[in-house]
C-alpha cells in the first residue's frame, strides 16, 4: 500500500542535552499519539527519525504510524552538529525506503521532511552539497525549524523557504511546534491528489514563520 513518508531530522548535539531534548521527546510522543487519532494519517503516514550530532543515526527506519514505537533518543554532552551528514543519510534512506511509481508498482506519496536544529551545520561544505541532493528527491514539503537563540535561520533558508523559529528551547515551545508539525502531516495525509506543495496550517504564536 502506498504511504506518505515523513522524515524527522532532529538535532541531538551537545546543546540539546538536558531539558531541550526531554521536551523534544515529549513533543514527539504527542505528535505520534495525535496523528494516531486521525484516520487518514493512521492509514497512510509512515515516520522515520534521524538524529544528528557528531554521529548521524536513523533511530527509526520508515515505519507505518500504526506499527511504530518511539525509540530512545540520547544526546552527547558536547560536540559538533553534522547537519550535512544527516542530509546525506536522509537521501540514502529516501532512495531505499520510498517507492517510486512504475508500471508494476504504485508510487508512494511525495515524502515530507521536517528538520529541527538549535545551531548551525559544523560540516558546512557537505551541508551545501547535500542541499542539492535533497532537492533532487522532490519532497512534497520541507519545513525547517531554527530552535532557540543560537539557531541560524539563514543556513536553513538555503534548504527550504519554509523556515520557522522558536525563541526558546523550553517544553511549551517544542510542544507547540510538534503540534503544528502533526497538523501539517495530517493535512498532507488528506491532500491526496495534491501536485504542488502541500499547504501548511498557520503556525501558533510560539512558532515564528521566517520569510
Amino acid at each position, binding site marked *: *500500500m502506498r504511504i506518505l513518508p515523513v522524515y524527522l531530522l532532529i538535532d541531538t548535539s551537545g546543546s540539546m542535552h538536558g531539558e531541550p531534548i526531554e521536551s523534544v521527546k515529549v513533543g514527539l510522543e504527542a505528535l505520534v499519539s495525535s496523528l*494516531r*487519532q486521525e484516520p487518514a494519517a493512521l492509514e497512510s503516514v509512515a515516520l522515520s527519525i534521524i538524529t544528528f550530532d557528531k554521529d548521524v543515526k536513523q533511530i527509526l527506519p520508515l515505519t507505518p504510524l500504526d506499527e511504530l514505537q518511539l525509540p530512545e533518543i540520547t544526546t552527547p554532552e558536547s560536540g559538533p552538529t553534522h547537519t550535512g551528514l544527516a542530509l546525506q543519510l536522509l537521501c540514502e534512506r529516501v532512495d531505499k525506503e520510498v517507492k517510486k*511509481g512504475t508500471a508494476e508498482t504504485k*508510487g508512494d506519496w511525495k515524502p515530507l521532511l521536517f528538520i529541527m536544529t538549535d545551531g548551525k551545520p559544523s560540516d558546512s561544505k557537505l551541508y551545501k552539497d547535500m542541499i542539492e541532493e535533497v532537492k533532487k528527491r522532490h519532497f*512534497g514539503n520541507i519545513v525547517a525549524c531554527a530552535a532557540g537563540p543560537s539557531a541560524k535561520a539563514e543556513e536553513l533558508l538555503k534548504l527550504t523557504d519554509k523556515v520557522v523559529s522558536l525563541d526558546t528551547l523550553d517544553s511549551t515551545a517544542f510542544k507547540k511546534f510538534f503540534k503544528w508539525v502533526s497538523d501539517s502531516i495530517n493535512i498532507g495525509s488528506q491532500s*491526496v491528489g*495534491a*501536485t504542488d506543495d*502541500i499547504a501548511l496550517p498557520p503556525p501558533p504564536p510560539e512558532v515564528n514563520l521566517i520569510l
Partner: protein
Amino acid sequence: MNREQRLVARRNAADSRIKDFLDAFEEAADRLSIPCSERRRFLGWTIENLWNKHIEERMNRRLVIENEINNLGLRIPNGTVRKAYTASFALPADKVKDVAIDGLEETGLTLSQPAEGEYLISGTPQKHGDFTLTVSYSTVEGEPRSSFKLPVAFNPDPRSIWRDLRSRLHKDGVKPDWATEYIMVKEDAEGAPRKDVIAASIQGRSHAHEERPRDDYFAARHYEDSDWYVVAVADGAGSAPLSWKGSEIACDTIIEHCRENLDGNKVFEEAIAAFHADPNTELRSVLTAQVSNIIYKGAVKAHEAINAEAAAQGEKPRDYATTLMFAICKHFSFGWFIASFWVGDGAMCIYDEKGGSAKLLGTPDEGEFSGQTRFITMREIFHDKDLVAKRMRMTIVPDFTALFLMTDGVSDPLFETDNNLNDFNKWKEFYSLLKEGFPEDGIPGVNLTDDNPEAAGELLEWLKFWRPGNHDDRTMVVVK
C-alpha cells in the same frame, strides 16, 4: 539411645567442631603472629569482607542476567482497539522467575504462561493510546526484582474515527457532496434495446472528514435525435482551492460543445460510415479531422472556459486544476463508434466481456509519486502535437459490455498499477466486483439489467467501498 541422649551427643559433636575450628584459627593466628588483642577485630573484618564479596557476586549475577534480558530487545507489536490481540515473548527459564507485568490491567489484556519460559499477552484492548508496560522478574535469591519497559500502542480502528459530514445540500454555493444520474434510453424503433448510462459521484471520506468540497464531477447526456452519447468525468486537484469548480466547468463545457457539434452532424456520421466501409488512409484522415474538430476542440474549449472563469473571478487558472476524460459514442448498423480524450489519471476503458478485451482509451498521466498527474488547465498539454494525439482515441467495435469512465478514487484502490489497467482479467474481476459488491463490508453490488434507474443509487452505495489509505472522491460513469 533416647531422644535426650541423642541431643546431648549432637551438641557435643558440634562443640567439638567449634573447638577444632577455634584451634585451627588460633594456630593460624599464632603462626602469623597476629596479636591476641587484634584477633577479634580481624575476624570481624574477614567476615565483613567475605559478605561484601558475596553480595557483590550476587548483584553481578543479577546484572549479568538483566543485561542478557535487556539485550534481547524484546518488543511486542501494536494492536487495534476492540480487535483480539496476542503477543508472546520468551525469557530464559533457568535465570528468570516470577514474571509479572505492571500496567497491563488498564489495557484490558492479561498475561499467561503457556509453557516454561514462554509468556503470552492476550485479550481485547479497550482503550486507544500509547502505553508503557513494565515487565518485572526475579533473578538471584536475595536480590531485588528486575524490570524492563515494553511500549505498546493500541490504535483506534480507522473506520470508527472518520467523521462523515457529507451533505446532499449545496454548501455556500459549492456542489453537493454526492450526485447520481441514470439516463434511460428506451428500445429503438425496431425494438432493439439501447444502452443506458449510470453515473454516480461521491465526496471522499478524507474530504468529508474535513468538510472540504467534492472535487470530482461528471456530466452525461444522450441526444435522442442523433442517438449520440456524451460522457465526461473530471477530478479537481486536491491542492487547488477552486478545483471543485474547475471539474464542473470542464465537464459542462464538453457537454455543451458536443451537443452543438454532434446534433445533425451528417458529415461526421458519413465520414465514420465511409471509413468503416473502406478504412484507407485518405478516409482515415478525413475522419480524423472530423474527430479532432469535436474531441480536440472540446478539450481546448474546456481549457479556455476555465481560463475565462478564472479571469472573471480574478483567480489563477491553476487554482481550478482538474483532470478531464470524455467520450462520445454512437451505435451504427456496423457497430459502435467511440472517440475520446483523456488528460490526467483515473481510467477510461471499453470493456467487452464476450470478446475478452479491455481497451484502455489512453495512458493515465502519472508521475513517480502518487498524486502527480496532469490537468486540462495546463497549457503545455496542448503544445506537443504528438502528445495531444496520444490523448485522443477513436475506434469502431462491434459491441461492448460497458464503457467505463472513473476517477482515480476508484481506479487507484481497485487496479493500483498501469499493468493492471491493461489486463483484461483485472477488468473482469472489476466487473464482477461491480455486480457482486463487497459483502464483507455489507455493500451490495449494482444491478446492471437494462432500464433499471435504481442502478444509479446502487452505484453511489457501491462507491463507498472500503480500502485502507484510499479515501479520495470517487466518480464513475458507465455506458452499458
